[in-house]
């Protein structure tokens, strides 16, 4: 039998805990760490805001070009019902587009990795689809799908698809060949090997791709709305621009960025839930990467 002496740390042990690890740090110190991590970006944001306020207050730039923060806030409050409705439309288009892009992208990546034929015939096509300026496709999509949500969703999918495929292919390919050999000596089926080894191993890279994709999906939805829409933040932006309504333009812009930031954070939360092992290895908190 093994003596306890053999289980003690040996000279080879690096950063091994002396006791079984307990999940993370206590929540109190976690809040403190979060504060310590986030005060810098917060300070920069505050400084920018102060600069904006100063420029508007001294009227260094005419108010119809750069409205004061107060005017923007007023517009937001006054028009909140209208803005909320349009924000919801754009958010919905973005989320549906992003989810579709993720599903199709991962499926395409699996196909590319597992089939040489698919790789040879599909990869050039995907690359070609990527280099077409998506914004130029938007008018065609309107012709095809009308003025509803569909063309916006399609555009969001088209833009967000590529980073998903690239990251998923890279992730699936990065599997250690020894792990596949080990799986073979266990007599595992291809499906089991994929489910238990290949896919989980690809998640870190896939999640980075998804984070890029979600911010791009917002762009897709908004561009779709520019070209032809009667709803959504992109539509409101065009209206406000036509009326030279700077406060509304700015309010609209802030809401668009908010959609992007909120969705990005959601994907990051998802990442922490799916691959806590990876996050713990990286060893920093959510806001550090925002």
């Amino acid at each position, binding site marked *: *039998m*093994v*003596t*306890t002496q*053999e*289980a003690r*740390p*040996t*000279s*080879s*042990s*690096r*950063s*091994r*805990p002396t*006791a*079984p*690890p307990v999940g993370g740090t206590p929540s109190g110190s976690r809040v403190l760490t979060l504060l310590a991590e986030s005060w810098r970006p917060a300070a920069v944001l505050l400084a920018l805001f102060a600069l904006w306020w100063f420029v508007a207050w001294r009227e260094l730039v005419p108010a119809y070009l750069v409205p004061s923060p107060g005017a923007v806030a007023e517009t937001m409050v006054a028009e909140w019902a209208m803005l909320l409705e349009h924000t919801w439309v754009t958010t919905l288009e973005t989320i549906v587009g992003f989810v579709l892009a993720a599903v199709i992208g991962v499926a395409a990546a699996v196909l590319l990795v597992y089939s040489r034929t698919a790789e040879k015939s599909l990869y050039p096509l995907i690359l070609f689809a990527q280099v077409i300026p998506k914004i130029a496709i938007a008018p065609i999509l309107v012709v095809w799908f009308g003025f509803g949500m569909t063309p916006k969703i399609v555009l969001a999918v088209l833009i967000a698809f590529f980073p998903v495929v690239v990251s998923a292919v890279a992730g699936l390919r990065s599997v*250690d060949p*020894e*792990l596949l*050999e*080990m*799986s*073979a*000596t*266990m*007599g*595992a089926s291809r499906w*089991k*090997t994929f489910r*238990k*080894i290949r896919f*989980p*191993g690809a998640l870190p890279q896939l999640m980075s791709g998804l984070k890029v994709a979600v911010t791009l999906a917002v762009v897709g939805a908004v561009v779709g709305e520019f070209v032809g829409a009667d709803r959504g933040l992109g539509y409101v932006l065009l209206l406000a621009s036509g009326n030279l309504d700077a406060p509304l333009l700015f309010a609209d812009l802030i809401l668009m960025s908010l959609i992007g930031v909120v969705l990005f954070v959601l994907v990051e939360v998802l990442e922490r839930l799916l*691959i806590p*092992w*990876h996050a*713990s*290895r990286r060893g920093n908190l959510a806001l550090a990467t925002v």
Partner: protein
Amino acid sequence: MTATTGPTTEQSTSAGSTDAEPIIEVAHLTRRFTSKRSETVALDDVSLAVRPGEFVTIAGPSGCGKSTLLKIIAGLTLATDGDVRLYGRPVTGPQREIGFAFQRSALLEWRGVRKNILLQAEMRGMDRRRAEERADHLIELAGLTGFERALPHELSGGMQQRVALCRALLHEPRVLLMDEPFGALDALTREQMNIEMNRIWRETGTTVVLVTHSVPEAVYLGSRIVVMSPRPGRIVETLEPGLPERREYGPTLADPRFTAAAERLRELLGASHATE
């Protein structure tokens, strides 16, 4: 399934009984790697028979094809020429009635210790409850108690290899193939692992083939030591020092049979280095 045969039945036929049918048979094995520009002969006419219960160590300089030999026995790569049989059946593809331990521990970094060991059971579709009992037993045996949920990167190199060993033994394979499993460990941890390996071999009666380029490891662990030459890999000599199965580390290293075998092995490896 042969893999579920209890270790106790094996024990009775083990201990290097010379008349037993070989469990691994390699005859006139040749392995060539061809690329567009050149052809390398990794293994040249290698013949080897391993009897049930034996602990065979394959020693040789790096690049002598000893890892390739092991992978051919496991069916992970195929021979160019020659005949390979495991349990009397020709090897034509990946073999599942073995345990394989890799140079690097090959653990899944997202699974804790226990779940990494249980991967073996999940992949084979073993009975869950029995597998869990066996895993807990192995965890205790390997001194990993208290670390069941620890992730690989939280473990030392030695502990990672222990986890890999537990995983390779979970389904009670009759044959355990090990590809320089302790090569990345520091000398002290390596000695400890060797002591444990000898104990596990004695207690389970598993037939072990272990590839190494460490002289003391080869002699301490092996009931038979197969020495290979550098590329093209050939078997130059087989040593049988006749040490007792139970080996206390210190006394064994001082044993004249050990020192003689180690001396001879060094000589052979040195000689083959010189002709490189």
